[in-house]
């Protein structure tokens, strides 16, 4: 098992991990010193320190995919401590802390709506039933920061096909688990729980659209959306819904959480587009997470760099209107 795992994981990642392990103690001392210096804990709005994160179990039989961007993947420590996952708290460092005891087994996903064979899938069926690929994707948040993430997962389309969507199935809707006892952030109504997202059928069937089960060769950490999340690399991150329990084929466009809350800020399509600003900030540039204080800003690419693969999905559409 161990040999197999080594064969599947890029060597660059191992170096990252080592650096991180060494830095861990130093950071803990530094953070402690910082806190005691000011005599107060960091506030919610501050980024927060990279605390060591529990690693997920290695995923067996990962196959390398041809979808790999050239950039170096963001550090594991950054990917797992800088999360927007309001189900586990609002600050970016909260989900890592508040999701530690989140149990993701057993986990079932209901597949329902406009399909011939609705049903239920357990996480074990998903891991065994679909070839797990490693894909290194860019990830662009609507907040104008980005990461490069080595996901493990499989095309969403492969799963959808098994349930035989009918001709009425024009959209696919997703829902996150709603369980305030296990997801403490849901105790307050900051969002209209459960979190909902949706794709058009052709977007859902696109080979780039991934259901992720892991990252860096290991099972998805809780704060990153364990045990199963969506990854749509050409769209802003909020489309990539986490901890999915329901997948539903629909005829009409399903409601999406952020879109309903502020439609002028978060469109249904939410394709990464440097030409269309968020009403409150420019989307022309982004900050690469991991570059530290002096990284500056980098140009955002149309469709987050995936224009060649996906631009045709939107031909004839005015993307300044269909945001």
């Amino acid at each position, binding site marked *: 098992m161990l040999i197999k795992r080594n064969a599947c994981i890029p060597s660059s990642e191992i170096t990252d991990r080592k650096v991180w392990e060494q830095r861990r103690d130093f*950071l803990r001392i530094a953070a402690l010193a910082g806190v005691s210096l000011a005599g107060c804990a960091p*506030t919610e709005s501050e*980024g927060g*320190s990279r605390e060591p994160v529990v690693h997920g179990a290695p995923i067996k039989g990962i196959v390398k995919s041809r979808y790999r961007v050239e950039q170096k993947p963001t550090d594991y420590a950054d990917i797992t401590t800088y999360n927007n996952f309001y189900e586990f708290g609002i600050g970016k460092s909260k989900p890592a802390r508040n999701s530690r005891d989140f149990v993701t087994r057993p986990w079932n996903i209901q597949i329902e709506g406009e399909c011939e064979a609705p049903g239920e899938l357990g996480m074990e069926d998903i891991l065994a039933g679909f070839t797990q690929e490693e894909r290194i994707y860019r990830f662009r948040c609507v907040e104008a920061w980005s990461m490069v993430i080595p996901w493990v997962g499989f095309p969403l389309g492969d799963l959808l096909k098994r349930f035989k969507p009918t001709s009425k199935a024009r959209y696919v809707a997703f829902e996150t688990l709603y369980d305030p006892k296990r997801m403490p952030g849901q105790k307050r109504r900051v969002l209209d729980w459960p979190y909902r997202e949706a794709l058009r059928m052709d977007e859902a069937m696109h080979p780039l659209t991934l259901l992720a089960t892991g990252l860096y060769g290991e099972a998805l950490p809780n704060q990153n959306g364990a045990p199963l999340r969506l990854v749509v690399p050409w769209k802003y991150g909020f489309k990539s819904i986490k901890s999915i329990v329901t997948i539903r084929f629909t005829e009409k466009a399903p409601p999406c959480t952020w879109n309903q809350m502020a439609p002028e800020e978060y469109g249904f399509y939410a394709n990464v587009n440097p030409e269309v600003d968020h009403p409150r900030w420019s989307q*022309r540039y982004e*900050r690469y997470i991991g570059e530290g204080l002096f990284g*500056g*800003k980098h140009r955002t690419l149309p469709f987050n760099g995936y224009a060649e693969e996906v631009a045709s999905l939107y031909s004839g559409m005015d993307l300044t209107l269909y945001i």
Partner: protein
Amino acid sequence: MVLPLSGSWRWLFKPLVFLLCLLPALRLAWLAYSDALGADPIEALLHGSGDWALRFLLITLALSPLRQWTGWGFWLKYRRMLGLYAYFYALGHFLVWLLLDQALMWETIVPDIVKRPYITVGFTAMLLLTPLALTSTKRMMRRLGRRWKRLHRLVYVAATLGVIHFLWLVKADLREPLIYAAILVALMAWRLPRLCQIRINLA
């Protein structure tokens, strides 16, 4: 009534307050130096400095009511220092935005100030505080005389814009900026009778 820290300890008090107010900045500087600000250190510095600018603005505005409630005159001795600290953190916040976040890219900085309401109000608040910091010396106070007081009422506008800046940048959870807003409203409500009186006197 016994003043806190009276008698032979009194000389220590002002430097102590000075150092205390500097601690958040020292802490941020230390965390930045030791790479312990998290995955997005620029955001951490921005939020840290912004939070403290607002806090010091509200603390400064709380000194007059505190004097009335406690009857202690010594609160006002710290008004200038705390006000200058508010400016210090606001300026730091602005410089982190300008130099690190925007990396001096004027093609985005200028449109952002003009087009983005939350940046416009934040930037205006910072601008309004600048003449107040510059005229905070005893000499300027004497030179400006009565006009000094009128000029320094701009702090009410700056604090209001600062809180609006915070409210407008939040995505979903308004709880934290609303706490600042509530404190500001309370502090301004306390001033209302007096400010109305000034209006009447001027008329």
